[in-house]
């Protein structure tokens, strides 16, 4: 009897011990989970706090939950003063007006709009690229994440570049125009008669000066494209119109180079999305190259072909061709063929580089076939504009 009681007591104590251990384990696990959660939260906060982009997190009733230091700077508000406040309270002040318009949909009950990389300026002091992301699980909305990317510096550099190009072109052209006008007038006899030898020398000077003028145009075009990559005014348009304009304006050049020129354009080509000015430059470079590198008496033929999803431009010449060994480098900056350098033709080595950039930016393809001494055909394709 006594023994039985002792056994029972021991069994109970044993059980109690086990329960205690189990309880302690659970507590330990909970504590660990809590620590883990805290550390995860700290990690997330550390990431958010240290991002150069600004992060604003709103809960599902549009109250500010997290505001990262860059956003505090952008809005010029105290962090403590805005946490827990409605998002629309953030936008007091004249310079935040545009930001409010871009972000808050007043009609839909002060809802945050869905935007992606929209550029908004804040007064005259900042340019921000703003993106909003709705956070939700399958069943419920969890809030909105707003990301602010500061593009003030990029915009400033862009403006400075444009201005530089404009001023540089103007300043470089002014003395060259004076030289051009003087030479032309002297050559035309406006300042008295010239001997044949004088005339010959001045004609050559005039040609040199023209080369300088077109070099400046080429150089400044390339900077525009690199700045752009970056098409400015893209709209649906007809490639055949661009081709016709360029051919029309190049007639003088063909006559001077004594090469014949023909164009074959089918009816009913679908429109393509393009920056017309850039596309004209691309076509013009190909036309000028063909004219420049085709000897007297040669011919140039331009065709447009309708394909299922794209239009293909083709320009075939009977010119000097591109040496096989140089095929790979042809679209690189400052490339000039070995054979054409010997011809002493003018050229900056920027034409095809520029053209390729333009075609790339239009999501087109450019390629060529060439045989030295026989001629070259350049092709490019542009996808039709989507309806």
């Amino acid at each position, binding site marked *: 009897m006594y023994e039985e009681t002792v056994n029972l007591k021991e069994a109970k104590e044993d059980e109690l011990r086990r329960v205690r251990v189990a309880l302690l384990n659970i507590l330990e696990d909970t504590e660990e989970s809590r620590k883990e959660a805290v550390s995860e939260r700290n990690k997330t906060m550390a990431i958010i706090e240290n991002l150069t982009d600004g992060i604003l997190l709103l809960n599902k009733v549009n109250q500010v939950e997290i505001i990262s230091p860059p956003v505090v700077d952008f809005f010029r508000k105290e962090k403590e003063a805005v946490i827990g406040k409605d998002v629309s309270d953030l936008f007091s002040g004249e310079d935040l007006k545009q930001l409010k318009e871009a972000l808050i949909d007043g009609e839909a009950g002060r809802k945050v709009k869905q935007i992606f990389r929209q550029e908004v300026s804040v007064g005259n002091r900042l340019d921000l690229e703003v993106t909003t992301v709705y956070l939700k699980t399958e069943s419920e909305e969890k809030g909105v994440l707003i990301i602010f990317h500061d593009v003030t510096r990029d915009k400033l550099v862009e403006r400075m570049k444009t201005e530089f190009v404009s001023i540089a072109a*103007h300043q470089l052209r*002014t003395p060259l125009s004076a030289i051009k006008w003087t030479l032309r007038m002297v050559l035309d006899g406006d300042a008295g008669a010239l001997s044949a030898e004088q005339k010959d020398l001045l004609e050559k000077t005039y040609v040199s000066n023209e080369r300088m003028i077109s070099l400046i145009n080429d150089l400044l075009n390339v900077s525009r494209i690199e700045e752009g990559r970056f098409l400015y005014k893209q709209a649906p348009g007809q490639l055949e119109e661009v081709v016709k304009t360029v051919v029309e304006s190049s007639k003088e050049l063909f006559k001077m180079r004594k090469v014949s020129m023909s164009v074959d354009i089918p009816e009913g080509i679908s429109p393509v999305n393009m920056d017309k000015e850039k596309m004209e430059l691309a076509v013009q470079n190909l036309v000028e190259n063909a004219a420049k590198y085709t000897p007297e008496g040669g011919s140039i033929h331009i065709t447009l072909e309708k394909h299922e999803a794209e239009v293909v431009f083709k320009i075939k010449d009977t010119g000097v061709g591109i040496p096989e060994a140089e095929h790979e480098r042809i679209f690189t900056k400052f490339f000039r063929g070995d054979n054409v350098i010997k011809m002493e033709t003018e050229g900056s080595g920027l034409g095809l580089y520029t053209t390729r950039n333009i075609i790339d930016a239009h999501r087109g393809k450019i390629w060529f076939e060439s045989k030295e001494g026989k001629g070259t055909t350049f092709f490019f394709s542009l996808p039709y504009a989507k309806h």
Partner: protein
Amino acid sequence: MLKKILLIEDDKFLRELMNKKLVVMGYDVVAAADGESGLAMIKEAKPDVVLLDLILPGMNGFDVLEKAKADPETANVPVIILSNLGQSEDIEKGLKLGAKDFLVKAHFTPQEIINKLKTIVE
């Protein structure tokens, strides 16, 4: 009567060259070296055509053009911009303000400029 051309150009040498060519070609030429006096001369001299530079000391060519077009007395005087600016934004702006043509100096000889001008005065 000779057709009268007003030349608004701040570069002295370019002004002299263009002036000489215009006189040789049989035009009556008046000239101004800045925007303010150019604008005043559009009103006083009543030219048949204005050749207008854009980068000018003080009032620039765009302003001259805008003011000339806003004044009913001078609104109908044809203006050709003759400048070495040539970015598409500049060209668009000039034509929008009412210029008949936009010629980049470095791309035209004096003779070619006069040919353009002839199509307007005759």
